[in-house]
C-alpha cells in the first residue's frame, strides 16, 4: 500500500472511526469530516490521494460517503480494511435508524406524531430540492447538458420511466459526448 503514514490503523480501528462518523453525521457535508479526520488530523493519507478518491466516489454510483469509506479503507488496510470501513459506516447507523423508526411507531397512536413527521418531511424535501438546484447550477450552460438534465427530469418525474434505463441511456450518451469533447 502506498501509504505515507506513521502507523496505518487496524481493521478494527477503521471500523470504529467510520462507525463514529456514521453515527454523528447529520445531513451531509461528510467529505469535509473525512478530510479532517484522515488527512489533516491523523495524517494517514495525502491530500492528493484523498481528492482522487473523492472524485471517483462522486463519479461512480453509490453514496459518496460509503464509497469514500471503501476507498480509504482499501488504501489504508487492503481488503479487510475496506470491509471493516464499509461495515462501520453502514451497520451501526442502520441499527440506529430502525430504533428511531420503532420509537416513532410507538408514538404512532398520537395524531401529533404524524403531523410533526409530516412537517419534518416537508422541511426534509427542502434538503432534496436544494441539493437538486445546487447540482443543476453546476451543469454547464450549453444546449446538450441542459437537454440531458431536462429529459432525465421529465422521464423520471412525469413519465415515471424506470430510473435504471433512463440513467443508463442518458448517462452513457452524456459521458460519451463529454469524453469526445476532451
Amino acid at each position: 500500500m502506498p501509504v505515507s503514514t506513521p502507523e496505518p490503523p487496524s481493521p478494527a480501528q477503521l471500523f470504529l472511526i467510520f462507525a463514529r462518523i456514521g453515527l454523528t453525521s447529520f445531513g451531509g457535508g461528510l467529505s469535509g469530516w473525512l478530510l479532517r479526520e484522515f488527512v489533516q488530523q491523523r495524517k494517514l493519507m495525502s491530500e492528493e490521494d484523498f481528492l482522487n478518491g473523492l472524485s471517483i466516489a462522486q463519479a461512480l454510483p453509490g453514496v459518496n460517503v460509503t464509497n469514500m469509506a471503501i476507498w480509504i479503507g482499501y488504501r489504508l488496510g487492503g481488503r479487510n480494511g475496506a470491509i471493516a470501513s464499509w461495515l462501520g459506516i453502514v451497520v451501526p447507523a442502520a441499527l440506529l435508524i430502525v430504533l428511531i423508526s420503532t420509537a416513532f411507531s410507538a408514538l404512532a397512536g398520537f395524531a401529533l406524531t404524524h403531523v410533526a413527521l409530516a412537517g419534518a418531511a416537508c422541511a426534509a424535501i427542502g434538503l432534496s430540492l436544494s441539493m437538486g438546484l445546487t447540482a443543476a447550477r453546476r451543469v454547464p450552460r450549453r444546449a446538450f447538458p441542459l437537454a440531458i438534465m431536462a429529459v432525465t427530469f421529465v422521464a423520471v418525474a412525469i413519465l415515471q420511466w424506470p430510473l435504471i434505463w433512463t440513467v443508463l441511456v442518458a448517462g452513457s450518451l452524456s459521458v460519451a459526448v463529454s469524453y469526445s469533447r476532451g
Partner: protein
Amino acid sequence: MPAIALSILVVFLPLSLVTIGGGQSAVADMHRQIVDLHGWMTASQFVDAFAISRLAPGPGSLLATLIGWRIAGPWGALAATIGIFGPTALLIYGVAHIWSRFEGARLLKAMERGLRPVAAGTILAASYVLLASLDSGWIGRGLALASTALLMATPINPLLLIGGGAGCFALLHLVGLA
C-alpha cells in the same frame, strides 16, 4: 430468507447502480416501485420513512433499510441494505483495486462532467415526486420551498430545519390549522 425479502432484494439491487450523486437520485424510483408498483407501503408511509431517514444520522440511502424493515422486519431490512449498498460497494472496491494501474484521468473527468446533468435531473425528479405525494397541501409545499430557500441562502444546520418543520406543523395542529 422469506420470499418477500427476496422480492425486496430484487427491487433494490439494480437501484444501487443508479444512485449517482448520492442516494437522493433513487428516491423517485423507490417510490414508484414500493408504492405504485408493489403497493408495499402507502404514499404517506413512504413520506414518513423519508422524513425519518433525513432525521437520522448516517448515509441517506438507509431509507432503503428502513423501507425493508417496515415491509418485512429484519429480513427485509437486511435484503434492502445489501441491495442498495452491495453492487456499488463492489464497484468502488474494484476501481480502488485497479486504480494504481488505471490511466483513467480523462475518462474519469468525462464521467464526472457527463453524469452531472443526469444527477441533477434525477434529484430534481425525486423532489418533485416527494412534493407531489405530500398530503399536507399548500402549507406543506410552502414549508418545503421555504426550507429550500433557507438551505440555499444560509449555512443553517439541516437537522435544526427539520426539527423546526416538525415543530411548526405541531404548532399549527395545536391551534387547529393543520
